[in-house]
């Protein structure tokens, strides 16, 4: 038993666990992006994917037995301190805030999409989007078109009428 514990402490160091976590987050996020169909879950997968990359980035500054790059009054000899690399920590701060901005924008896009298509299924949205784009190109160019939106929805209007019959 002690042999096993020794084995663990030699090979299962903090940085190995953290790197495993980063790879795991990346893989889970990418898997979600490829497999899922609900656009909100797609966004969440993107968030997970992003956090994996962030963890990977901040780990690039990790040093064995390093301390946080902050001076405190208790430290005596500056030159003998082993400090972690401060640059990745600053970079990851930037990357996280960028991620927050993208997520907020994506959320408002999802709201807009739901108002238009009444669904969160990516396949269905894709299909309807292609129809809509084909409808736009059948009519006049965008900049000079003056018709209201429902003219593009001929197909859906027809379907509704049929449903009423």
């Amino acid at each position, binding site marked *: 038993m002690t042999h096993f514990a020794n084995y663990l402490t030699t090979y299962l*160091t903090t*940085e*190995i666990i953290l*790197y495993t976590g980063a*790879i795991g987050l*990346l*893989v889970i996020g*990418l*898997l979600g992006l*490829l*497999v899922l169909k609900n656009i909100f879950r797609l966004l969440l997968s993107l968030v997970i994917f992003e956090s994996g990359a962030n963890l990977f980035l901040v*780990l*690039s*500054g*990790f*040093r*064995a037995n390093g301390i*946080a*790059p*902050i*001076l*405190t*009054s208790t430290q005596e000899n500056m030159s003998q301190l082993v*400090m972690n*690399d*401060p*640059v990745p*920590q*600053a*970079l990851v*701060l*930037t990357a996280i*805030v*960028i991620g*927050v*901005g*993208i997520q*907020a*924008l994506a*959320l*408002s*896009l999802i*709201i*807009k999409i*739901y*108002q238009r298509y*009444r669904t969160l299924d990516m396949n269905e949205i894709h299909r309807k989007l292609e129809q809509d784009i084909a409808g736009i190109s059948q009519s006049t160019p965008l900049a000079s078109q003056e018709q209201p939106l429902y003219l593009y929805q001929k197909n859906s209007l027809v379907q509704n009428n049929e449903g009423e019959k």
Partner: protein
Amino acid sequence: MSKFSTLIFISGLSFLLIVITAQLPIAHPPMLIGQYIIDHAVQDTGVTNIVTSVVLAYRGLDTLGELAILFTAASGVGLLLSNKLNTKLQPSTKTVRLSNSNFIIEHALNLLFPLLLVVGFYVIFHGHLTPGGGFQGGVIIASAFFLNILAKPYKSSDSEIESTHNNLTIIESLSGVTFIAIGLYALISGHDFLEPFLSHGQLGSLWSAGTLPFLYIAVGLKVGAELSSLLITLYDIDSEELTD
């Protein structure tokens, strides 16, 4: 079948990632620029939190870009979800859907709100000395204001939200302009853009590190205002619009 092939793809990819990671100098990074910054940051900028010197001095332009991204996202959200504000003619819808919050929540809020503000500003003001800084403090401040909305939803009438939007727009504009103006002042007086000026002061005291604390205050206010306006705009969507 496609899920099976995805699974194979993903397992291959994770294997590749493991192989790549195994090649990295884990726990012994080369630190070509990191070591220089650790050695020189204190005399260059007068901070004790070295990460702050990287965020605001060595890589100050990144921080400006990041503020711009947050601003862009807030602008995009405002632009996309603004239609509702235009067409809002029936003020009654707001009161119907919201229930009153109870006594405990309201009083807990009254207790927490000033506390959160104090913590937020403390984190911002001490960004150059201790862990934390403008981003973290800004998020704490934004959470204080959002807690306010969550706990007292029925009190926010349309005109109140409109005036909040007004104030937030002005804060986010002015704080962003302040950040750039500090940088431009250095440029006009013959230095580089964003070069820190003012004296470094006593190492470790609140008034030290030249212009860096002022930059962090601008960052904190901007992040706080930006996130608050994002949350308020997202909150402000009528839930009726989203349900059939």
